[in-house]
């Protein structure tokens, strides 16, 4: 059910530049508060954690709760001093981890 996450990460940057990263993950973010037509509660299933690492070092993390809109979107900044690879991971309640990677050349 998980589509490929969308990333917007610059492919190159100057040393010390603060870059902006935007990510969008397709996910219904079922809150667990809704009921189906028969009145039975629909079980919660959300992305509960988002982690961004740079060269295997954690640089940004978010703990999500059901109050994050469907298709979780995040925008944040990072100051880059060296070339490397960003790795992103979205952790689903059901244990599924969706990952994406993007490298950046820093001059």
């Amino acid at each position, binding site marked *: 059910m998980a589509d490929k996450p969308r990333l917007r990460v610059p492919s190159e940057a100057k040393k010390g530049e*603060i870059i902006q990263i935007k990510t969008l993950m397709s996910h219904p973010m079922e809150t667990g*508060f809704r009921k189906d037509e028969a009145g039975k509660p629909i079980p919660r299933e959300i992305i509960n954690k988002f982690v961004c690492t740079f060269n295997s070092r954690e640089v*940004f993390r978010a703990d999500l709760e059901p109050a994050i*809109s469907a298709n979780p979107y995040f*925008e*944040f900044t990072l100051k880059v001093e060296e070339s490397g690879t960003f790795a992103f991971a979205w952790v689903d309640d059901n244990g599924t981890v969706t990952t994406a990677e993007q490298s950046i050349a820093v001059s």
Partner: protein
Amino acid sequence: MNALTRRGALLLGAGLSLTLVDLDEGAATPAEAEAEIAKFTGGKAAESGKIVPLDIKVESPMTAADYVSDIRVVGDANPNPGIVTFHLTPMAGRAEVATRIRLGGTGTLTVLAKTSTGKFYAERKMVKVTVGGCGG
């Protein structure tokens, strides 16, 4: 921006385990939380509570010695007041994050930022929501 009230502090406590541990250690009390540093824009009148854009900016040098380490967002109109917690590192460069949140109705939205030096900054705002985004 009002100082955090006792009720507000209790409300925050509903999901604020990480920060509350530090409060218990006497690093700071909610009353010491300073205003006007943490800013956010969350659409004062959101048409639908399903997608409310939230932009958070916290003034901070973001150096290894002094940076914003955690930002917690709480909304009292939601069945579960905790909304999201961000964990930042000095590598962020700026303490700026944006996301989209759900709000169950009109209520107070609180953003609480904690720095690596143990200071807290808070900003609260009334957000009007015409149609809630949490129920079904």
